[in-house]
């Protein structure tokens, strides 16, 4: 049976604004399947975003949706979650939004380990503004502001999240579409800050400048570079050169922020 995405999408909002071949739609479908699999109630689920192509995603979703300012999604979401810990809070945004202008909010959400699911759609470019390089644009790549090749080193978002204290970190790709919902569902079920990085592509502003003939070429690249963590364990360093690990990269149990604050309340009431 075809999957019933429509029951999660606001009537009349499709087709979405994303360009032909943009992986954001693939990730959005994965997110919908995950929300469905976890049985999240629409009225009790907030989907929060910043600014950029990926951040337009909540507008399509028939949930409590909050499209905030550039980079600020995690901080708005923290306010929502603190004020109503019973709500499920999902943050969605792009690599520039999350790790450049929003980098501080991102790492501190990870550090607090607040029970939210942060989905980063990493297309390694600022798409909405026309293809300027982001912290995730590969060194040497062409962007509208790096026509001579990008001099900047890149962030590994998943490593950044692990280092900052997120207790669940996973990575998938738009090519491996069937895996996306499973990773996000595991993240939603996890108690604590779950980061799910989805590698996808911007054929319009990145692909064209970087000698990808089409999004199909870009999807083939995702297929080639992705190595599941289990498979990677059996591979040599040379074999892993240029590859990207996918699957659940990190998971641990540690104190969750709202629960910690509930203890503060308990102590204050006794004081």
């Amino acid at each position, binding site marked *: 049976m075809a999957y019933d995405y429509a029951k999660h999408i*606001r009537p009349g909002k499709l087709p979405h604004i994303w360009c032909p071949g943009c992986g954001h739609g693939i990730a959005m479908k994965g997110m919908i399947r995950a929300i469905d699999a976890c049985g999240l109630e*629409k*009225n*009790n689920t*907030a989907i*929060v975003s910043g*600014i950029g192509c990926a951040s337009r995603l*909540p*507008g399509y979703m*028939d*949930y*409590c*949706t*909050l*499209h*905030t*300012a550039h980079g*600020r999604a995690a*901080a*708005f*979401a*923290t*306010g*929502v*979650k*603190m*004020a*109503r810990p*019973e*709500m499920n809070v999902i943050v969605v945004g792009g690599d520039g939004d999350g790790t450049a202008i929003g980098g*501080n*909010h991102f*790492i*501190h959400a990870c550090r607090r380990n607040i029970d939210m699911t942060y989905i980063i759609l990493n297309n390694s470019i600022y798409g909405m503004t026309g293809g300027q390089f982001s912290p995730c644009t590969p060194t040497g790549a062409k962007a509208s502001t790096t026509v001579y090749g990008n001099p900047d080193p890149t962030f590994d978002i998943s490593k950044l999240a692990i280092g900052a204290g997120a207790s669940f970190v996973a990575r998938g790709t738009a090519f491996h579409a069937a895996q996306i919902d499973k990773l996000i569902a595991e993240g939603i079920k996890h108690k604590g800050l779950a980061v799910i990085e989805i590698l996808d592509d911007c054929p319009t502003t990145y692909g064209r400048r970087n000698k990808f003939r089409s999004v199909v070429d870009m999807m083939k690249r995702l297929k080639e570079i992705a190595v599941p963590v289990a498979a990677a364990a059996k591979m040599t360093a040379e074999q892993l050169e240029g590859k990207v690990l996918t699957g659940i990269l990190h998971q641990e149990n540690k104190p969750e922020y709202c629960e910690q*604050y509930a203890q*503060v*309340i308990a*102590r*204050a*009431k006794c*004081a």
Partner: protein
Amino acid sequence: MAKKVALLQGNDACAQGALYAGCTFFGGYPITPSTEVAEVLSIELPKIGGKFIQMEDEIGAMASVIGASLTGSKALTATSGPGVSLKQELIGYACIAEVPCVIINVMRGGPSTGMPTGPGQSDVQQAKWGTHGDHATIALVPASVQEIFTETVRAFNLAEKYRMPVQVLYDEIVGHMRERIEFPEPGELEVINRAAPTVTPENYKPYDTSFGDVPPLAGFGTGYRFHVTGLNKAQDGFPTTKAEYVDAEERRQISKVEKDEARAVIEKNEEYLVDDAEVLIFAYGSTSRSARYAVNELRKEGIKAGLFRPITLWPFPEKRIAALGKKVKGIVVPEMNLGQMNLEVERVVKGTCPVLHLGRVDGEPLNPGQIIAKVKEVK
């Protein structure tokens, strides 16, 4: 029964006023000279099941406040000049998305780091124009510890009533001053709660002007689903670039504060010996305390001086100042900046009387002697 009294610092009074108003969320970041507001609320809010969070930066603090308010909480942040500068982005967000919240600005000198432990009144135009784009502003300027309490309560009331950010600006002198305060009994001061939607969730639109120019705001997690964005939006909350929607929404968001009926509610001033005054002193915050002393001294000398003290600074009391400008020989505007509110006074009196500015920015308060000397310059 005698009222509960205390010797309280201004920042503490602010925190107590917030609690009286029903504040249940504080998001902040440490900054002098406002930090005591956060410290007190970090102790008091959890006692009532409220939430205090120290965020990673000023912008995050403002974001958390807006997020919490969207779930129905009365939410507060407190900061000072550099923090207010950082918050401007999201003060604009709260304006366009129409999210109630209160921002306390304990004013120090500036620009930039300036004089963190010294007083200033140089953020008063920033309060009006700090965030980009056209928007209405409500800013209150209490002048005593007692008034910080009552004006913080009123700030929450106006934020909830008009569905917008409200700023409370007081200078470091009042913020750190300790004075006797009488705590109002519960019910003594009006406390306004957010209007709830009167329609079912299926029929709810967050900007539905058929309910007036301040449409009810539902809370996330209360059974209502809707979209909130910082983009120009139509009445259903979804982004639009349609000229007629954008224009109507922008104008509504300003007129809901600036129209006469709203001004009658929002504006609040104190007039001291103004009726027969020949020279008017326009002063707010701690400067108004020196000005009141100056008025008394001048009267002893036979000079008919009067004090106009705005308690609501924005929207500006345009009509009253214009009327007084036609009656007096001149208006003196002492303030701890190099010329900000005098521009507004000049604008509204339209040359009907001279406006003399008296500025001080060396970290010391304006004293009555300086004000008296300036008043005597009015011919």
